[in-house]
Structures are given as C-alpha cells and as structure tokens.
C-alpha cells in the first residue's frame, strides 16, 4: 500500500508538470489553431538559458532563472508567433505542423551544437530530502513541484475566468470576428496566449530539468506526452489538459512499476488511440462538432 501511494504521488508530481506543458499547448491551439510540434523543445530550451546564465555568465541562480524566463517569453513566445506562426498560418495547418517540427529540430540541434551533447546537471531549486507520508517515501522536490504546478494552473484559470483581459482572451479564442466587433484587440490577445505558453513552458522546464538533467533531446518525449495529455483530457478545456497530464503521469508510473517496463512508452499511445476513437473530444472536453 505504501508503495502504491509512493508510485501515485511521484506520478502526480511528474503528471502536474506534463499538465503545465499541455495547458500551454491547449491555449495556443485555441487561440491560433496552431498544433505546436516544438512544444517539447520549448520546455528543453529554457533550462539551457539558465545554464548559460549560471555557468557562462556566472549569475546567481535566482537571477539566471528570472532572466531565462524573460528570454524564453521573448524568444519562444513573441518571436515564435511573429516569425513562424503569423506568416505560415494562412497557408494551412499542415504547413504549420511541418514548420513547428522544423523549429523543434532547429532548437534541438542548436542546444546540442552550442552547449553540448551530454546531459548537464541542473541546479535544484528545492531540497531533495525524502519525506515520509503515511509510509510512502517521497522527495520534497516532488511535493513542491506538484504544489507549484497545480497552483499555477489554478491561478491561470482564475486569470482567464475572472479578469477582463482573461475573458477577452477567451472571447478572442472562441470567436475572433465577434470579439473584434465588441472591441477586443484580438491580435494582442493571441499574442498574450503565446507569451503565457512560453512562460508555462519555461516554468515546466525549471521544475522538471533537475529531475531529468538538461539534455538536448529532452523535448522529444516531453512534447509527445504533452500532446497526448492535451488530447486525452480534452483539447478545448484547460482542466482537460490538467486531468490528462495527471492521468498520464500516474498511469505511466503504475505501468512501469507493476506491469511492464518495456512497453511503458506504449501506454500513453494506446490511451490516445482509445480516447480518440471512443471519445474524440477528450475525457473532460466538450464536443466541438465537426463537418462530415
């Protein structure tokens, strides 16, 4: 039992970080119909900004983290929207999918060439001491990761539902034409979405990299899992992405511990196929309706 609790808690901790990435992914999808195949790399890159800050420039950790957040928001938020999404979106979803894939390769190879191919240790923000909860031994880091990610998702939801800007962002995502008529600056709202996505990716990066080490190839699995979490939970709902992320984190851990480690990677995929075939709008999602 205590082992199960342990597996469950560490699954939730990883899952909550997946959820952060999946939420950003969902937001960008809603606002700009962009399926971002570089999302995993967006999580990989900020950790390298921090490493450049601490190792190359010699900044203290907190300053490096803050600067990395700002740089990420500018580069993978604003520039991504201006230079990649805006010019390519009119020519269709598939072109944009390819462009984001190419961007993913670009970021991955750049991290490898300009920083290094080996996994780099990453400074932990929290103590990793084990603590004991009802017999389950969990690290402090896991618990804090879980609390922070959930807190951020709750804050984001409050922002989107309770503030004027947040509601305008939702309006712009749901029906840009009407939102524009009602005086919402749709372009700016879409830009905010990209900035928020970049900030979420950076935060996920700071939380997950101490566990996984900073490696140029981190994005590959992370990106895929975030998509799957978003789809399984429900593509058009933030809480869907949250549920999907947590579910995959927990199921992944349970499969690896109790069933099969070899086919561990297959589980989210099977889940994805089942959900898409049985309930395409996702577990929490509402049906978008579709033609044909």
């Amino acid at each position: 039992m205590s082992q199960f609790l342990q597996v469950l808690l560490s699954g939730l901790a990883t899952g909550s970080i997946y959820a952060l990435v999946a939420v950003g992914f969902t937001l960008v999808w809603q606002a700009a119909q962009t399926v971002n195949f570089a999302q995993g790399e967006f999580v990989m890159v900020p950790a390298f900004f921090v490493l450049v800050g601490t190792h190359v420039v010699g900044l203290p950790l907190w300053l490096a983290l803050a600067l990395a957040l700002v740089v990420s928001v500018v580069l993978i938020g604003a520039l991504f929207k201006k230079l990649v999404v805006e010019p390519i979106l009119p020519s269709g979803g598939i072109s944009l999918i390819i462009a984001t894939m190419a961007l993913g390769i670009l970021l991955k190879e750049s991290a490898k060439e300009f920083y290094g191919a080996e996994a780099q240790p990453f400074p932990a923000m929290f103590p990793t001491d084990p603590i004991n909860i009802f017999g389950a031994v969990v690290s402090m880091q896991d618990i804090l990761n879980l609390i922070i990610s959930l807190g951020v998702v709750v804050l984001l939801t409050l922002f989107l539902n309770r503030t004027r800007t947040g509601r305008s962002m939702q309006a712009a995502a749901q029906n840009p034409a009407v939102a524009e008529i009602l005086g919402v600056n749709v372009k700016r709202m879409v830009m905010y979405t990209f900035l928020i996505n970049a900030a979420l990716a950076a935060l996920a990066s700071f939380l997950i990299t101490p566990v996984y080490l900073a490696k140029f190839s981190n994005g590959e699995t992370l990106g895929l899992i975030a998509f799957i979490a978003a789809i399984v939970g429900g593509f058009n709902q933030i809480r869907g992405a949250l549920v999907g992320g947590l579910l995959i984190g927990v199921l992944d851990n349970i499969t690896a511990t109790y069933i099969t480690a070899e086919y561990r990677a297959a589980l989210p995929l099977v889940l994805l196929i089942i959900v898409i075939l049985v309930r395409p709008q996702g577990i929490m999602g509402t049906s978008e309706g579709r033609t044909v």
Partner: protein
Amino acid sequence: MRRWIRPALIGLAIILAILAPVGQGNYITYVLTSWLIFSIAAMGLNLTLGYAGQISLAQASFMAIGGYTTALLTLAGWHWMLALPVALSFCFVVGLMLGYPALRVKGHFLAFVTLAFNTLVFLILRNEEWLTGGNYGLVGMPRPDFGLFSTMKQHHFYYFTLTITIVAAVIMWWIVRSPWGRAFKALRENPIRAESLGVDTRRLTLLAFAIGSTYGGLAGALVTPLVQFIEPASFGVAHSLRILLMVVVGGAGFFFGPFLGAGVVIILPEFLRFTEGYYLIIYAALVIVMLVFTPKGLIGLGALLRDRFWGKRVARGDLKQGAQLK
C-alpha cells in the same frame, strides 16, 4: 504549358536518372538509390495527403512493416520477388486498418493517431527480439538475383530500383488519372459535395490509406536489400516526419512533387556536409523559410515565378460554371 513540354521533361528526367550514376562511386550511387526509394514512399504519402487530404505520420512504420517482412522471408530463403507481394499485401491490410480512425477523426487528431501508431510499431520492433532481433536488427539479407542480372553491384541495384520506381510511378499516374484519382481529389476538396455526388467517401478514405501504405511497404522492401541491415531506429517517428517533409517540400498534390522533395531532403544534406554539425540547423531554418515564402512547395515556387513573370489568364470567377453554388 504546351502539350509536348511535359513528356519531354519526363523523358529528360528519365535519361538523367539513367546517366546519373555513370562514373560515380559506390557512395553516390547509394545516395541516388535511397533517393529513388524515398521517392516511392513519398509518392504513397502524397496520394494519402496530397490527393486525398488525409494526414498520416506513419509512413515510416509501413516502410518498417514492408522491410521486416521482406527481410524475414528472404532470410528464410524466399526469393525477393516472392517476398514482395506478401510484404505489399500485409502493408495494404494494415494500412486499411489504420484508415479506420481516419473515418472518425480529421486533421491534427489524425496526425496524432498515426504518430502513435508509428511509435507502437517501433516499440514492437524493438521489444519482440525473438522475431525482429530487437535493437540489433536483422543483418545479411540477400539482394535479388535474376540469373543473368544480379543486383549485387551497387550500380546494378540502382537500375533495378529505377525500374521499379518507374513502374510504381506509372501505376500511381494511372491511379491519379483514373476516376479514383478524381474521387480522391473530391474527397480532399469538399467531402460533403463528394458524398452527395455519389462518391463513397468511406471506402475512398480507407483506400487512400491502404494504397499510400502499400507504397511505403514497397519502399521498405527495397531498403532491406539496399542496406542489408535493418533496425528499429531507421523507422522511427523522425523518419515519418522526413517523408512528410519530402511531400510538403516538393509540393503536396503535385505528381512530381515527391521526387523533387525526396531529392532535396536526401541530397541537400550531402551538400551541406561541409558545415559539419550545423547542417541540421541550417536545414531546419531553410525549411521554415521555404514554408514562409512558398507554402505550396518547390513545385509551387515554379508556378509562383511563372505567374509573376508571364502573367496569367484570369477567368472571371462569377462566370465559371457552378460559381453560384459556392
């Protein structure tokens, strides 16, 4: 374009393809052969994506299915020509099954289902060691031998592949020009109208997947004797993306797009080799730039330039037949 230009260009391309490896070393011939093979795979995906409008990120997994089937059968002593139909039928059936999700979901959802399928195939190939050799893969598949014409030499294998490519291209040409091909385009352009005109969209979607996958399988069946070593890592998601890239770079929905795209994707890295580690970075940047400026692919670039310098006869939209139906 004038009527004779197209056949003349095709003839010229075939002559160039025949002359290309003459006097070249084994390595260049090898690169050219893999260009042909990937053209076949991209041709299949072009049917699924470019003509029928169904996105698939699983083409590499069909290369894997075709490749492993051929490998296992030829290692068991079958002749390649006998193993080929088995591999192709297998791919056709699996492709048909993969088409079923496409009946339910579209666009990015379909992209993810096929992506997941590709990863599952990869995992099975890696984990089922008793059959596939796991991470070590399979080694030593013989090249086909036709008595008088043995393909053991790199040049001979190139001509063998070229012949098969031309046959595959002619069959594809026939498919695209046949009523099927037009129905595929109808499916892409407007599924509702296609359905109302009596096109069986359900059967066509499945067929688009099955035929596209069979071409992937053919490419796989050719890779096996070319490399004589196959491993799961050569058929991962990254390779499906590469094939998709070929289709889009060349120009999705254009018959010759895949050949051009495969050429760019396979041969361009060879030219960028002098940049050493940076070539993938430059390459990815070039792809993004290309998508910004010529979203229809390189064939689209040709049309873009032509429109720019030659001008174009524009038919008035409101006088076209059926304009009021829009």
